[in-house]
C-alpha cells in the first residue's frame, strides 16, 4: 500500500508520521534528535512503521474484537516489541562499551558485563504495563540505568565509577548514531510470542492472531512520498522540493487535528512559534523567538536540572502551588539563580515553580500576540503541551486576556509538525 511520510526533525526530538492514501494516520514515531540527522530521521520513521504495523494488525483483528481486552493486548504487544528493540540496542551498547574499554583498566570489561547483565535482567520489568520509565528513548533509559547500577557495581568491584561512565559516554553516541537495523518482522514475531497466550482473553485462537500478524507484516508499506520539516530541515536528507517550512507544517497539522483552529502555539525544545491559520489551514501569519532559551522547552529542562528533578516532575509539583511567585529574569540562567534566591528567602518550591511556568507562558504569549493574538479556536502543541502546569497557566492567561476560548490540546500534539508534513506529502501526489 502507498504510504506518505512526514518527518519533523526537531531540536530535541524527531517525529515521524506515516499516513495512508485516505489521510488516515497509521503510525507515529518519535526519537531524540541527535547529531546525525539521517539516523534520527531513519529511527523516527522506523518507529512510525512499528506503529503502522501495529495498527494494521489491530485492524486485522479489529473486525472480530474490540474493548478493553483488545486495548490491553495491543499495549502489551507494543511494549513487548519495544523490549525487543531495547534489548537489541542494549546488546550493541554492551559490545561497544567493551570495545572502548581501556585494555589497561583491568576488570573493566567484567564490570561492564556485570552492569549490562543486570540491566538486561531488569529490562522486562521496565516494559510492563504501568511501569515507570524515565523516558521512552533508549539514550535516557540506558543512561539512567547505567548511572544507577554502575554506581553499585563500581563500589562492589572497586572499578572507578568515572571510568565506567566515561566508557559509557564515549559509546552511547556511537550506538545512537548507528542506523536502525531493518529486521522488524523478526522482532514482531518474537514480541508476539511473548504475549500470545494473553490472546486467550479475547477468545481468539493463536492461529487467528498469528495469521493477522502475518498479514500485517506482509503489507508492503511503500514510501510514496516523504516530506521533511523542522529545525534541522536545512540538513534534512531530502531534495529541496520535499521540504516544507516548519511553520507551514505546524499550521497544517493543527488544522488537520482541529479543523476550526485559527491560532496555533507550539512550544518546542529550542523554539517557540505562534501561527495564525485560515479556515483551510493555510498560514496567514507567524512569529518565532530567536535563539534564546527563555520561553521555550529547554527553559524548563534547565530549571529541572538545576533542581535535580526530572522534567516530568516539574509540572506536578507546580500544580501544588497555592500562589505564583513572580520571576523577573528573562535569561534562563539568571532565572535559575533567582530561583535559588527565592528559595533562600523562604518561598516555597512549588510556588516558585508555578512562577517559572507562568514566566514561560507569558513569554510565549507575547510571541502569540505578535503574530496577531488569539482567535478561536486555539491549539497548543509541542513538547511543553505535555506539562500540566504549563497548560494550566496558559489557560489562565488566555482567559484573563482573551476571554473564553476553546483550547485544544491533543495528547499527540508533539506530532503536529510531522502530521502537517505527512499531509503535504499526501497532497503532493494528489494533483
Amino acid at each position, binding site marked *: 500500500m502507498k504510504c506518505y511520510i512526514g518527518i519533523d526533525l526537531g531540536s530535541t526530538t524527531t517525529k515521524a508520521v506515516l499516513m495512508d492514501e485516505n489521510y488516515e494516520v497509521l503510525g507515529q514515531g518519535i526519537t531524540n534528535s541527535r547529531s546525525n540527522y539521517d539516523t534520527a530521521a531513519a529511527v523516527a520513521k522506523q518507529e512510525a512503521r512499528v506503529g503502522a504495523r501495529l495498527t494494521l494488525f489491530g485492524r486485522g483483528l479489529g473486525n472480530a474484537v474490540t474493548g478493553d481486552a483488545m486495548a490491553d493486548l495491543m499495549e502489551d504487544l507494543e511494549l513487548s516489541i519495544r523490549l525487543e528493540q531495547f534489548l537489541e540496542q542494549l546488546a550493541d551498547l554492551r559490545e561497544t562499551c567493551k570495545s572502548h574499554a581501556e585494555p589497561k583498566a583491568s576488570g573493566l570489561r567484567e564490570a561492564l558485563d556485570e552492569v549490562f547483565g543486570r540491566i538486561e535482567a531488569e529490562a522486562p520489568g521496565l516494559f510492563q504495563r504501568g511501569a515507570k520509565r524515565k523516558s521512552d528513548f533508549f539514550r535516557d533509559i540506558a543512561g539512567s540505568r547505567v548511572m544507577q547500577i554502575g554506581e553499585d557495581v563500581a563500589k562492589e568491584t572497586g572499578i572507578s565509577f568515572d571510568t565506567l561512565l566515561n566508557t559509557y559516554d564515549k559509546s552511547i553516541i556511537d550506538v545512537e548514531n548507528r542506523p536502525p537495523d531493518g529486521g522488524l518482522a523478526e522482532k514482531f514475531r518474537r514480541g508476539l510470542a511473548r504475549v500470545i497466550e494473553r490472546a486467550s482473553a479475547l477468545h481468539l485462537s493463536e492461529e487467528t492472531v498469528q495469521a493477522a500478524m502475518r498479514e500485517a507484516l506482509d503489507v508492503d508499506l511503500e514510501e510514496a512520498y516523504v516530506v521533511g520539516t523542522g529545525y534541522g530541515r536545512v540538513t534534512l536528507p531530502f531534495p529541496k522540493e520535499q521540504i*516544507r*517550512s516548519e*511553520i*507551514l507544517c505546524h499550521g497544517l497539522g493543527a488544522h488537520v487535528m482541529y479543523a476550526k483552529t485559527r491560532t496555533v502555539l507550539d512550544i518546542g525544545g529550542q523554539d517557540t512559534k505562534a501561527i495564525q491559520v*485560515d479556515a*483551510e489551514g*493555510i*498560514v*496567514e*501569519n*507567524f*512569529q518565532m523567538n*530567536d535563539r534564546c532559551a527563555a520561553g521555550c522547552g529547554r527553559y524548563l529542562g534547565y530549571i529541572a536540572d538545576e533542581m535535580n528533578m526530572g522534567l516530568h516532575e516539574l509540572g506536578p509539583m507546580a500544580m501544588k502551588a497555592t500562589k505564583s511567585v513572580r520571576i523577573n529574569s528573562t535569561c534562563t540562567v539568571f532565572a535559575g539563580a533567582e530561583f535559588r534566591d527565592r528559595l533562600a528567602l523562604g518561598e516555597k518550591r512549588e510556588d516558585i515553580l508555578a512562577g517559572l511556568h507562568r514566566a514561560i507562558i507569558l513569554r510565549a504569549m507575547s510571541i502569540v500576540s*505578535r503574530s*496577531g493574538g488569539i482567535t478561536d479556536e486555539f491549539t497548543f502543541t509541542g513538547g511543553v503541551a505535555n506539562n500540566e502546569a504549563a497548560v494550566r497557566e496558559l489557560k489562565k492567561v488566555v482567559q484573563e486576556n482573551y476571554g473564553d476560548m476553546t483550547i485544544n490540546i491533543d495528547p499527540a500534539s508533539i506530532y503536529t509538525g510531522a502530521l502537517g508534513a505527512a499531509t503535504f506529502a499526501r497532497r503532493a501526489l494528489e494533483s
Partner: protein
Amino acid sequence: MSAAKSPAEVVKEPSMLKQKAMIADNYDKLTRAKELGLKVSSTYVPGNLNELLMCFGILNNLPEINAIQNGMRKLSGKLIADAEKMGLSEDVCTYVKADLGHMAKGAIAPNGKPMPVPDLLLLSYTGCFTFMKWFELLRDQYGCRTVMLHVPYEGDGKATKNMRDYVVKQLKDEVIPALEEISGVKFDIDRLRENLRRSAAAEENFVWVLESAKNRPSPIDAYFGGVFYIGPIFTAFRGTDEAVEYYRLLRQEIEQRIAAGKGPVTPDGEMAAEKYRFVVEGPPNWTSFRDFWRMFYEEGAVVVASTYTKVGGVYDYDGFRHDPERPLESLADYCLGCYTNRNLPMRVDMIQHYMEAYQADGFLVNSIKSCNSFSAGQLMMMREIEKRTGKPAAFIETDLVDPRYFSPANVKNRLESYFQMIDQKRRGGAHRAA
C-alpha cells in the same frame, strides 16, 4: 534567459555609469574643498536644502551617505565598535555610530582622501529626533558652527499654515543669514528659483521611473534598485543639470526594458521570472545588501514600491514638486512632507495605496533596529495593511550598517516561509475556486 550572469558580464547601463561619475566627482570636490576654496556644509538627506546651499556655492556633505558607503564596503562594523568605545550605547542608531567612528578614524572618503571638516552643520531636522542629537554630538567634536531648522512633525497628517510659516521664518531669519555669513555670498532668490526649476524637472522623470513598476513584469525593483534611483534626487544633486540628465537617461533605459518585456537588472544580471510583487516598508540593510537582494531575485520576488524611496521627499503620492514660484514655501513643504515626518495613519494610507496601485501580492516590513523613526509602530502598520488589503504581510528584522544584526539564516528562513505561504495561499485559493 533566467540564467544568472556572473557579475563581470553584467552590462552597466549608461545611467549607472553616469551616477557613478557624479558620486566620484562629488567626493573629489569634497575632499579638495579646502584647496578649491569651497565651503562645506554637513546636512541630512530627509529635508535637505540642496538647492539653497547651491545658491551659496556651498558643498553638501551627507553623513548618512558616508555611513551607507562604509556599510556597503563592510567597514562599518569596525567603526561602530570604535564609537561604542567612545561611550555611545549599543542601543542607539548605528548611522550615528558609524559616522562618529568614521570621524575618529580620520573620515576617509571612498576615494581614499580625508573628508574636510565642515564649515557648518546645517541641522535641518525632519522626521527623526536622532538627527538633532547626532549633530549635537558632531558639534561637540568639531566645535563648528551649527544652525538648526526645526521642522515640526505632521502630527495630524498635514502641514498647517503655522508649521509652514515657522519653517519659512527660520529659513529667512536663521538659515539664510548663516549661509550668507559662511560663504560670503549674498542670497539671490532668483538663483534659488533656477535650481528649483531643475529639481522639478528631475522629479518629474523620477516619479515616472517609480511608477514604471506598475507594469507587469515590473522593469525595476523599487527597493533594491530603488536605492540607486533615489541617489541623485535625495542627495547633493537635486537642482543640478546632472540630475536632470541622469533621470532622462534612466527613463529611456526603462522605457526600453518595458518595450522588451524585461524585469529588473540585478547584480547578477537579469532576474528570474517575476513571481511575487511586494511593497516594502523600511530602509534596507547595507552590510549585506547584495545577499539580501539575492534572497529576493532568486525567488522571482520583485519589489514594486517601497517607502524608503520616499524618505528624502515624497513626490509621487500627492504630487509634490519643488516650485520656483513659491521658493521658500516649497522648501518648507518639502521638508514637512518627507515620509517619516508624516504621521502613522498617513503612512498606512500611503502603503495601502501602493499595495493597490502596484498590484502587490504582499507587504513586507524590513524593521531596522537602529531607526525608531521608521520602526516604532511598524507592527501595527503591518496589521492595518493586512486588514485593509487582505494581503499577507511579513516582518523581518535587520539593521542599517551594523553587521551584527543581519542574520542571513534568520532572514532567509523568514522569507522562505513567507514565499511558501503566498504560494500555498495561491494554490489554496485555486483549490477553493475549483
